[in-house]
């Protein structure tokens, strides 16, 4: 799929893998003649963020909160470490779902 189209679709569908807020597609680098290179951005975290499927985010959040999952044992337990843990589980779940063919560039399919 063409990149700009893919990003446009992800901005409508995906959420930030750290905080779960919706993403925006926008130009970060621009000059007086216009923008260059569409990027996905989380306004809440103020970061360029590729995002994750919302269903996967909900599962990751539930896993981290319910099972008190902590991959980052060297960090203080706070919202930053919680978000990093959710992002980590998001990566693992997304990877696994892609491997079994449920997740594609178009999003989550039905099992």
């Amino acid at each position, binding site marked *: 799929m063409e990149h700009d189209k*893919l990003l446009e679709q992800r901005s409508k569908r995906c959420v930030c893998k750290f905080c779960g807020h919706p993403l925006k597609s926008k130009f*970060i*680098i621009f000059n007086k003649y*216009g923008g*260059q290179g569409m990027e996905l951005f989380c306004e809440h*975290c103020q970061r*360029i963020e590729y995002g994750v499927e919302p269903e996967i985010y909900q599962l990751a959040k539930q896993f981290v909160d319910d099972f008190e999952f902590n991959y980052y044992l060297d960090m203080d337990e706070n919202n930053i470490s919680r978000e990093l843990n959710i992002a980590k589980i998001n990566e693992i779940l997304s990877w696994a779902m892609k491997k079994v063919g449920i997740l594609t560039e178009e999003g989550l399919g039905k099992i």
Partner: protein
Amino acid sequence: MVLLEMKDFSYRVGNQVLLKNINWTIKEHENWLILGLNGSGKTTLLSVASGYLPSEDGTINLLGEPLTVHNRRKLCQQVGLVSENFFSKYFRNETMNDIIFGGYYGQLGQLGDLTDKQILYARKLMRQFGINQSSRKPFWLLSKGERQKGLLIRALVHKPQMLFLDEPCSGLDIFVRMQLLQLFSHLFNEGISLIFVSHHFDEITNIYQKAMLLRQGECHSQGELTQILHAENLSDFFHSNVQIDIQKNGHIHFEICDKQKALVINFPKQEANKNGT
């Protein structure tokens, strides 16, 4: 093959002219050294030449194609930009991991899913550079050295044809700096053309054949390194009488000969203590 060609290129921000009438051609297997004082436009020059910053007046041909909004992303994926000055304007809360992964796409962020092979290769480089422990940290929390290494990995994840290095050794300890200088020689042997901006003559090794001196956004002089780094030319560039000696191994001895340009501080004389103590 001509890798980069800039013709009558200028760049402005508001009324400020950052680059003026730059004409510059880089051929295959050429390594360039760019020298300039602070604020001379070096970072802007590299950011535009690598396709990261949109071009304005004049034309740029990159890797044999006119650089446009349509092919910019494709061309950016074939060159690498290592510039903490440039990227720190855009990266703040992004983690090192995400910044490095963005390198596969020739723009700031990731544009698509990565393959296992791509992730593993990036991780391997991070381990080699000793920054795997910093992968989850946001950019603003990283040390200058970690940023430099991360941005270098970002530029190297896809083997670039050209590598634009904007003061890549600043903020690094002496050991890592030596490691990087050796790495640059290795990259040159691998066929990558290097465009190296530095403030330090001791970072210049014998792999550079060409040089450009940049002053207040204008090219003062460019050409063969030995002609550009010549006492007469440098004296004109610095508005000061300088001496330079380039040794066979590439090491450079540089000296300012103008006594009146030497910075001397006359400390206020302390009054003698009346008690003589």
